[in-house]
């Protein structure tokens, strides 16, 4: 198989280079015509903020990885990139890599489900741009199937593997529903936003945001249909909240021991959960000693994350088994591509002769006799062609003696004059 490709990912390049090389959907659509003209007859581009993979069938034999890398660099003009930042693949290795990406075992966070959607989108853009033909389409189907099978047949995507999601998992062990709960997110930065999004997804009843810069809190609150409370008077309204998630970059504690103590008094024993996902910590860790308070910081949540990551890694052999199964099926299909037309022409050739000959006696015998002869000749042709068809398919599908399959195919075409079907008809 001629497929070749390059990949820049977390194993090969630092985050700043990966981010700089990231192609937006617009840039992908701009890049595809360039690749179509100079490099590939068909292909696809997968580009996320964490990885860029470009694969395809080269138009000419002399085209290699360098040409793909140069085309990409001509488009993005990134300084500091060297050949070591790219992984290069061809043939089986290329297919295996694509399937590993689709199975999410090549992601920075093993089992990251986002990649499934990103792979689909990449292939869809390719199809819509006329950059995907028979081979890429089949590869797309295989990749999607691998993605689905890894989700349903393995536990690769299970368990929280981010701090904010691990915090939600702990909350789920305390509260049965979130719709009647009130949550406060302190800090409207990236981590705070992610935590607020998770809470919103879980159907939190009331979401409040607070931030030292009020406008930031307002923007996030607007985005998530939440409310804003004033950062300065935060301590006075703590008792309203069942859940407090703090994710600021403050140097000192935002919530002192006494703040939480007075909050607990006012809450009359109702359970309260404080998730301190900031470094350095925003809440005095001594609050963990209070009854009715559940306190978790990054270290404790990391225990969940690390354990889940270990569990996901244990699933990799199962995923690899799925990849091998799907690769085998894919290559069976691919290897049979060349002999399928020959088999079809070969069978058509015999069928035509049979039909010609049987037509000659159609009006000379009774209908029931004709039917019998018709069926009998079909059976004869079927039996004659059974082994040649079977052997040709077998030779090509196994891929072990692909050259022999090709030779037999050509020989059959030559012997039965299948390349000139019009002449056959006349004769």
């Amino acid at each position, binding site marked *: 198989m001629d497929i070749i490709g390059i990949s820049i990912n977390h194993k090969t390049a630092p985050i700043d280079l990966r981010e700089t090389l990231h192609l937006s959907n617009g840039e992908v659509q701009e890049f595809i015509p360039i690749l179509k003209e100079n490099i590939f007859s068909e292909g696809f581009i997968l580009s996320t903020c964490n990885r860029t993979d470009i694969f395809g069938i080269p138009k000419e034999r002399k085209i290699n990885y360098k040409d793909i890398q140069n085309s990409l660099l001509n488009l993005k003009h990134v300084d500091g990139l060297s050949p070591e930042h790219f992984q290069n693949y061809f043939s089986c290795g290329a297919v295996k890599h694509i399937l590993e990406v689709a199975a999410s075992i090549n992601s920075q966070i093993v089992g990251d489900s986002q990649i499934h959607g990103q792979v689909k989108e990449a292939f869809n853009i390719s199809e819509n741009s006329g950059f995907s033909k028979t081979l890429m389409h089949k590869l797309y189907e295989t990749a999607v199937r691998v993605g689905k099978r890894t989700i349903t047949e393995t536990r690769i995507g299970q368990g929280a593997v981010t701090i904010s999601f691990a915090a939600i998992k702990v909350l789920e*062990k305390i509260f*049965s529903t979130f719709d009647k709960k009130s949550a406060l997110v302190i800090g409207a930065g990236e981590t705070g936003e992610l935590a607020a999004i998770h809470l919103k997804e879980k159907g939190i009843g009331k979401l409040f945001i607070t931030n030292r810069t009020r406008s930031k809190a307002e923007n996030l609150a607007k985005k998530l249909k939440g409310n804003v409370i004033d950062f300065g008077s935060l301590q006075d309204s703590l008792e309203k909240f069942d859940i407090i998630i703090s994710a600021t970059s403050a140097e000192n504690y935002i919530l002192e021991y006494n703040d939480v103590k007075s909050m607990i008094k006012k809450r009359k*024993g109702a359970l309260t959960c404080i998730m301190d996902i900031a470094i350095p910590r925003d809440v005095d860790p001594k609050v*963990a000693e209070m009854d009715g308070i*559940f306190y978790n910081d990054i270290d404790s949540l990391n225990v969940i994350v690390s*354990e889940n990551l270990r569990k996901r890694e244990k699933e990799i052999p199962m995923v690899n088994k799925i990849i091998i199964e799907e690769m085998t099926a894919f290559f069976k299909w691919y290897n049979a591509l060349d002999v399928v037309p020959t088999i079809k022409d070969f069978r058509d050739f015999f069928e035509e002769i049979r039909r010609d000959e049987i037509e000659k006696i159609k009006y000379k015998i009774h209908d029931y006799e004709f039917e019998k002869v018709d069926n009998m000749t079909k059976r004869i042709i079927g039996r004659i062609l059974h082994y040649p068809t079977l052997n040709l398919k077998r030779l090509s599908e196994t891929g072990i003696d692909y050259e022999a399959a090709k030779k037999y195919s050509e020989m059959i075409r030559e012997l039965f004059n299948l390349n000139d079907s019009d002449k056959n008809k006349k004769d």
Partner: protein
Amino acid sequence: MFKVTQIMSYWLLVLYIVTFIGYLYDFFADKKYLYNTKRVFLFVTLLFHVIYLVERTFFLGHLPIVTQYEIFSLLAFAIGFTYFLLELLSDIRGTGVFILIFALLFQMKSTLFIQDVYVVNSILNNYPLGTHVITAILGFSAISISSAYALMYLLLYKNIKTNKFNIIFKRLPNLEILEQMNFYAIIIGFILLTIAIIIGFAWLPSAFPDFSYWDPKIISTMIVWLIYSVGIILKLRGSITGKRFAKFSIYGFILSILFLLLTGTILSGFHNFVN
């Protein structure tokens, strides 16, 4: 015939042990194939228990509510059956091991010490008594289940508090659900005990010439009833919640079991029906 009843009693204990081990193994292993298998085991155990109780009733000629150990067997059945229904209705499967341990312990106590009493007070062949005993037993089984949920609550509470994300954290439902189940079980137990007490007060004075309001069983039941009624009021008012309510539930259960054992062994009164 004697041997049949005895053999059945031992087989019943074996079935409870096997079912409990099944639930215990599933709690730690969390294997999909065990989800329904363990439930089938529980169903078979309960079915065998029914057969055992029926056989015992016909063989001894009276309902198996005469001796303390017969009551323990009925309690084991009531706990197992109530949990079976709870599992079917709520589909919360991680709690079985904590509840079925009670059923197993009650049945073990019953199997190991049970005696066959042939001659019993004729008063026992009476419908009000049957209702009185059955509601009381169901009430006690609900209280046992409530304490199991309370125990699970405390274990999970401690695990989350100390950031231990082990098997308890993974397999048990959340704290709010456990507290809710604990409370519901107490309410059901309280209602059933109330019915048992009302029937008892309405019927016992006319049925027993030596009836006394100072009977140890009546006094202990009233104490238990009063404690639970105070607990329920405080819970409804929001005065005791969470961990404190869980502790209340466990202490209440320990007290009721202690009373049950004391009144059945050391203290005697007109409630003792064995002639």
